[in-house]
């Protein structure tokens, strides 16, 4: 897909990250990360000890101390590099999106309405302000994000979505947004600028990745506290060891104390923590989702309920007319004629599919004084008035009310037909002529292939899926069962979505939804994770906390997995880091005391060559494990929807048990290597 760059370490990014690794040594920046900050203090002390050892051998030789100093510095640089490479990758990704909005000439106009070519001034896009109007014709690059004020155009959005098929955007309705950098292919639109330069969602996201406005997420804060706590425990362990050693007449060098400390504190996760967070946002960006905060990604992992629109998410596009059922005693030809006439001005896909099924050009009928009745949410029907005829088509209950109010009974046979169509997953449209029911049109949905499996996957993650549809309950139930969703909201009005979200939230669940219309904005704002489609209205985009550039309604599923991956990567690497301590203890503790208490050789279960090689091996292992785990931190731990217990078992086995065993092997191997030099 699009801008995905599969290589983790692009050369130019690595170079930039290497430079940043040194810049980040600045204690002011380091202070944000308590674990690595203590390592920096340790490194500084080692520097002083190294200089001191030039004059005296009391703390060991210069070479010995200098080696430790270098190793600690390397540990710091590795940790900084992890953060820097994650930032560089995020930035590169954002830049490739930003490239689309380089300086382009903008045709600013002073007012909507009668545009004369001389009223247009051409200015650079950077001078456009929020509220300005500009227009674009076929071939123009849209200079800024905005909402179409007038007109309709086909637009090539491949620069952002990578999708080559052009899309239609038009004024009014839910597909009125255009994005800077995309290209108008046909027609002409006037666009109102919605954001000032530098304040678009993309700009905000780039700032988040770059660290300037990056805020720690709640879980990240809690984890930092946990890691700081561990660090404190080991400060206590290391400091108290000094009087213990004095009591036992076992001199320990400063280098050994600092090695013990640095190896025991959770440097692995401490060094990778911020890289993991940035990589999470970066993964979202790679999925073409712009997040407004790191917290939104994290919250996505906690989602319990997912609200999905039926159309476009569960079913392919739109319903199609499949059958005409004239009422008893009604002439089929007359019925079809009425149906065709009523759909003449109906621009909805359903209306068009009715004409398609009938196969008759509506203009072949002669009608005078035709007046088209638009569909409204109140009447829930549409149709045509001409001469003395009033044809309406709409939802069964709407037409029923219509005909019964006029004193005409709703035929039983029609009612039966309606039920039958509904229970087969179809949508019945009842047609009336002069408030008398004349027949039923059947519309059918086509469920997306593979959607059932995706819902199954969500269920295993513990997420309840809810289908939102305007259909009647029977139809909704049929499709819900067929697609495998857990619940549905039928005959949904915008406030129904809102109420459903509030109800679930009151019961303590977190709700995610996707939407595009202005109608959706309140629900998007209410939902814990609201993903707005980029094509949607500005109101929707402002209300949600993520924007999907692909306008793909199934994107929520990916977003949830990205969130879960983010938390899991933190959890597993914390476990790994802490589990490593077991082996490090067994490497370092005997090394500290063995010279003074030779009988402690029994504790040297790894059979390391000498105290010096043991200490060096532990510190080297501690340093190199950070870069070795960078790919995992950036890619994230794979999420498998196998249920929480199985997942815990799996991760505990791999990262917990693995975290105990790996350093035993690693330190032993490094010791064999190192001792050949000593």
């Amino acid at each position, binding site marked *: 897909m699009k801008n995905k760059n599969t290589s983790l370490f692009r050369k130019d990014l690595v170079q930039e990250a290497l430079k940043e690794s040194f810049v980040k040594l600045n204690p002011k920046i380091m202070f944000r990360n308590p674990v690595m900050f203590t390592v920096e203090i340790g490194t500084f002390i080692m520097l002083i000890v190294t200089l001191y050892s030039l004059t005296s051998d009391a703390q060991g030789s210069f070479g010995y101390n200098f080696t430790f100093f270098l190793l600690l510095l390397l540990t710091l640089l590795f940790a900084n590099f992890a953060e820097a490479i994650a930032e560089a990758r995020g930035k590169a990704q954002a830049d490739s999106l930003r490239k689309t909005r380089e300086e382009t000439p903008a045709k600013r106009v002073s007012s909507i309405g009668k545009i004369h070519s001389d009223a247009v001034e051409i200015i650079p896009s950077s001078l456009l302000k929020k509220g300005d109007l500009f227009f674009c014709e076929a071939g123009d690059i849209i200079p800024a994000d905005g909402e179409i004020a007038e007109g309709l155009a086909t637009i090539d959005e491949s620069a952002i979505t990578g999708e080559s098929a052009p899309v239609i955007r038009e004024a009014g309705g839910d597909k009125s947004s255009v994005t800077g950098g995309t290209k108008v292919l046909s027609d002409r639109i006037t666009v109102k600028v919605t954001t000032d330069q530098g304040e678009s969602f993309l700009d905000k996201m780039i700032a988040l990745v770059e660290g300037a406005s990056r805020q720690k997420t709640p879980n990240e804060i809690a984890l930092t506290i946990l890691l700081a706590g561990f660090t404190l425990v080991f400060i206590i362990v290391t400091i108290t060891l000094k*009087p*213990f050693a004095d009591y036992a007449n076992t001199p320990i060098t400063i280098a050994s104390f600092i090695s013990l400390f640095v190896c025991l504190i959770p440097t692995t996760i401490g060094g990778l923590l911020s890289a993991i967070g940035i990589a999470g946002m970066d993964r979202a960006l790679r999925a073409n989702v712009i997040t407004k905060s790191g917290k939104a990604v994290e919250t996505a992992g906690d989602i319990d309920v997912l609200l999905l629109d039926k159309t476009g998410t569960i079913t392919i596009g739109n319903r199609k007319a499949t059958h005409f059922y004239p009422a008893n005693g009604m002439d089929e030809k007359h019925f079809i004629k009425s149906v065709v006439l009523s759909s003449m001005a109906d621009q909805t896909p359903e209306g068009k599919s009715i004409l398609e099924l009938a196969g008759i050009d509506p203009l072949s009928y002669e009608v005078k004084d035709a007046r088209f009745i638009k569909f409204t949410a109140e009447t829930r029907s549409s149709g045509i008035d001409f001469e003395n005829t009033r044809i309406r088509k709409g939802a069964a209950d709407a037409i029923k009310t219509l005909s019964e109010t006029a004193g005409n009974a709703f035929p039983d046979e029609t009612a039966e037909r309606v039920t039958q169509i509904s229970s087969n997953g179809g949508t019945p449209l009842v047609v009336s002529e002069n408030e008398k029911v004349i027949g039923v049109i059947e519309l059918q949905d086509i469920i997306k292939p593979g959607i059932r499996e995706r819902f199954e996957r969500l269920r295993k993650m513990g997420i309840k899926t809810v289908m939102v549809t305007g259909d009647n309950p029977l139809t909704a139930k049929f499709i819900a069962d067929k697609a495998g969703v857990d619940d549905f909201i039928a005959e949904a009005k915008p406030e129904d979505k809102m109420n459903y979200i509030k109800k679930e939230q009151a019961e303590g669940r977190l709700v995610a939804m996707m939407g595009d219309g202005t109608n959706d904005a309140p629900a998007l704002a209410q939902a814990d994770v609201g993903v707005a489609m980029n094509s949607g209205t500005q109101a929707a985009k402002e209300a949600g906390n993520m924007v999907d550039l692909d306008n793909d309604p199934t994107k929520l599923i990916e977003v949830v997995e990205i969130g879960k991956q983010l938390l899991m990567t933190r959890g597993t690497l914390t476990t790994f880091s802490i589990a490593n301590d077991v082996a490090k203890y067994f490497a370092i503790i005997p090394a500290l005391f063995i010279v003074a208490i030779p009988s402690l050789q029994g504790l040297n279960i790894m059979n390391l060559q000498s105290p010096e090689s043991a200490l060096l091996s532990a510190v080297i292992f501690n340093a190199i494990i950070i870069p070795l785990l960078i790919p995992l931190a950036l890619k994230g731990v794979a999420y498998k929807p196998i249920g929480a217990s199985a*997942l815990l078992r799996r991760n505990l086995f791999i990262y917990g048990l693995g975290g105990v065993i790996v350093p035993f092997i690693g330190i032993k191997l490094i010791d064999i290597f190192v001792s050949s030099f000593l």
Partner: protein
Amino acid sequence: MNTEILGVVLMYATVVALAIPLGRYIGKIFNYENTWLDKIFNPLDRLFFKLSGIDPSKEMNWKQHLAALLTTNAVWFVLSLFVLSNMSWLPLNPDKNPSMSWDLAFNTSVSFVSNTNLQHYSGETGLSYMGQLILMLWQFISAATGIAICAVVFNAMKERTTHELGNFYSYFVRACTRILLPIAFAGAVILVFNGTPMTFEGKDSLTTLEGAEQHISRGPAAAFVSIKQLGTNGGGYYGPNSSNPMENPNYLTNILETIFIFLIPIALVFAMGYVLKRRKLALMVYGVMTAGFLCLVIPAIYYEMNGNPAIAEMGIAQDMGSMEGKEVRFGSAASAYWAINTTSTSNGSVNAMHDSMTPLTGMFAMIGMMVNSFYGGVGVGFINFYIFIILAVFIGGLMVGRTPEFLGKKVEAKEVKIAMIIALLHPLMILGGTALASFLYAGNPEVYEGWLKNPGFHGFSEMLYEFSSSSANNGSGFEGLGDNTPFWNLATGLVMLLARYLPIIGPVAIAGILASKKFIPESAGTLKTDTSTFGILIFAVIAIVAALAFFPALTLGPLAEYFSLY
């Protein structure tokens, strides 16, 4: 199977068999369900509350609970200080024993208030009967305090959102009258029938076969010994504690006293399952605690039964195992079993000299205190364990890709912060205290030579043990340490005080904060906390956080001694 081991297995099986119904009973008491003792105690309870003007039905939030706990404890602490430093002229002093020095009175009061029962005195000569009685009162009160606050935590763990967590005074009185009093009474009766003294008369005198005059200290010992065991207090009536034949006359009383150590700590785990209707969770907690306990007790029994290699080298057969400092009527297995029982529960009574155990048994006893939650003290054992649950929930929750939740409540930064502070408090006090003592001793061995009769690794173990015992509110001593000095009295007194109340305040705060959070129903994506996998995670957290932090210190003490000896 060896009879000695069979005896140990029987003791454990009996305690579990008794703890299950007792847990149910305790659960009923905290749920305010009807029990058969209601007839007797309801009027009594009402009388207490009427006299004190307390409304036992007034709901308290977690802060009010802590305030009630701390103020009641403070009042009794002052009373205890007064009695101990004025025993010489107060009544019930037939043996004319003197009052305590101020630092010893402070240490002893703190020690008994905090359920530690570290004793820097010997009961026969150091206390009047009045002193013994005030300390016995403490053994009830401190145990009931632990049980009551544990009930508050259980209440907070229920599936609802609330600030109201019951009434502390009501839990406290119910714990005294319906749990401790009846069981302690039954235990005391058995002890009396086996020969433990129960009298207010002064010393007995007799002429031995050799014709020498011997004075035997007596007093209300049976009542004292019974609650000492039951309330994980551990402070002996006599200096040698339960190795003294008056306190623990025979193998039968030894069985009774051993069972009493574990009875309530294990029963409270099952009570939690009953109160929350989460039997599986209780089984998980019990499983982790038992696994930890077995890791300590099995090698301890093994090493004690196998004797001391230094003695073996002299060509002396040790068929009974390592018997130095042990009572022949109990044997090496039952003594080792008691040693691990008493240290892993914060009881601290002894039936053998811990100083004389083989090095690794000494280490396992210390690890029991360092972890302090493999069953742990009455009430507080579970509360300590609760901290490890919170830490494990946090790590485990992240590992399954969700914001961590425990019983439907989100565990966030604030809870993690409190849990981490409490988790590092214990290493801080044990290692910090030992470091201070080591620093003083290493700097000036001549001045402090009275402390250690055994310098070297063993002396280090003695100091480490003393601080572990204080911080775990255990109260047993490695002995061999000259500890009735102002330094040890004040240092351990301070440690006992902090180690008692902070680890109560922290978990109660966490439980209270969680209780007031929104309840989140469980889904397939929620981390299940009642599974064996989660049990393994908690065990790993305990092993790495609680045990490994002490590894360097243990290396210089018991491990160094072990590797030099074997």
